[in-house]
């Protein structure tokens, strides 16, 4: 039976949860999530509490107020707590929605922290993300995209070489009649050259994990 919504968006303790996550106070995070879950549906908890917290943390990272280590640890903690408190991975809360198939990878090297942070945030925001792993070649990824019917592909990069390899990837996808696949990029090279994502033929880029949620949400609605 659907739960009765008794809290408005404004009433959910976004700042409290953010502070608890950044101080790695597991008990406080759990307490806040349990209280929210007692009076709201899982989807409301995610949309009105968890996602806004992740957005504020992402904004804090963009503003230089929150470090990458804090973003990573907060993501880990919120993922664990969402699974525990909501009783199932957040993605299942949206199982009825026909979401596009989403995958994420790192091209050619082992710089996987960005992938981990973004995929964690997308997962707790209710998206299922297939992990295509690290050190993948362009041809590997093209094959996986075709075989698994991927519709949104996120590519995380740290080195310029990997960012430029996205250009090869988008060309190969087009050559293989896979140009309907939306390619979303992120990572340092795209922050330091704001035109680079267009140059490599990506459909969008995200500065932070929270921007990735915004981008993927918009693509999923389209």
């Amino acid at each position, binding site marked *: 039976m659907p739960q009765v919504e008794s809290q408005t968006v404004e009433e959910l303790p976004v700042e409290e949860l953010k502070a608890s996550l950044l101080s*790695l106070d597991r008990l406080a995070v759990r307490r806040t999530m349990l209280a929210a879950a007692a009076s709201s549906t899982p989807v409301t908890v995610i949309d009105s509490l968890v996602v806004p917290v992740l957005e504020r943390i992402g904004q804090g990272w963009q503003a*230089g107020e*929150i*470090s*990458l*280590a*804090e973003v*990573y*640890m907060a993501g880990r903690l919120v993922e664990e707590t969402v699974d525990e408190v909501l009783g199932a991975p957040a993605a299942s809360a949206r199982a009825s929605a026909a979401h596009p198939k989403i995958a994420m990878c790192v091209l*050619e*090297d*082992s*710089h*996987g*922290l960005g992938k*981990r942070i973004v995929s964690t945030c997308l997962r707790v925001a209710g998206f299922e993300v297939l992990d295509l792993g690290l050190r993948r070649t362009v041809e590997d990824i093209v094959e996986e995209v075709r075989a698994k019917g991927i519709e949104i592909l996120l590519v995380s990069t740290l*080195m*310029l*070489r*990997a960012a*430029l390899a996205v250009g090869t990837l988008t060309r190969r996808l087009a050559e293989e009649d896979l140009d309907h696949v939306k390619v979303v990029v992120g990572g*340092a*090279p795209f922050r*330091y*050259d704001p*035109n*680079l994502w267009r140059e490599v033929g990506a459909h969008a880029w995200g500065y932070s994990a929270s921007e990735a949620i915004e981008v993927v949400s918009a693509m999923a609605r389209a």
Partner: protein
Amino acid sequence: MTPAMTSLQRVASVLSGEVPDRVPMFLSTGLHGPAMLGVSMREYFGSAELMAQSQLLKRETYRDDIVTSFAYAAAEVEAFGQETVFYENGPPNAGRPVLSSPSDIEKLDVPRLEDCEALQRGLEVTRMLAAQAPDAAILGIVIAPNSLPVMQLGFERYLDLIYEQPDLHARLLEVNEEFCAAWANAQLEAGAHAIGFFDPLSSTTIMPRDLLERTGLASARRTFCAIDGTVLALLASGAVIPVIRDFVELGVAGVGVGPDEDIGLAKAAAKESCAVIGNLNGIEMRTWTPEIAEKHVKNAIAAAGGGGGYIVCDGHGEIPHEVPHDVIAAISEAVHRWGHYPLSWTDLPAEL
């Protein structure tokens, strides 16, 4: 006009708080070496002669003040037994982490420099540069003990280790600090005039300040005590302004400033206690024209060059090999055109 100095005098002057004849520059174009010499990346990084030759050619072509024996960051983890992956279109990268689990740290030993070919090549490059470019400033590079584990363990697992296994983290730092100091001192002994302490993790971009004080900065303090020479802190695009006074207190002679920060504010934060080095955007540089390059250099000199204390450089410590020759030449030309002291033109209305 101040009498002309050699590159070494110019850089030494800035690092000791004096005003040189001209703003010095460091063009970190190591990745251009293979193309300059017409060899593959692998051949280039496997030869001390080629690496030294490209540094000398760079100095001749661009009238650069600083040469370096730095090859690629993963050379240091080769000493621990890790593999390096070479690419023809970019910098070599560390292969799979040598520490497959944190428990491997317990049996980790400090590697001997003599047993690592890549590091021995670096020392050979340093000796060649000292012999063949006696007027140039020679910069050696070490990866900080608190940043090396990103390659040794992987970034995620290293952050997990810092937060969850402080004892093993302390043990890893202990090993890395001894290794780092030995590697720095070997480079100084071979002829390097200063050591760039490459420490991306000791930035508030990566670590919260309280954790940084207990980890990266504490480790840097211990390591600097064991290094017998001048040290520059290079945070590889990470925010340095929030920690600049900490590094000054640790005794560094200069700090690298990333493209995200205002080089003038960094200079002000340094309060004339150390030089600032930076902060041209190496990623964006790929798309610059010579005119845009001149504008960026001129703006940087206007913001940070006054009264000395500034070295023109990219903001990361490595100019991508995709950056064209004419842009690098324009950066050099702009430094020579606008960098001579006194910088009286900075008092005039802006021309560009």
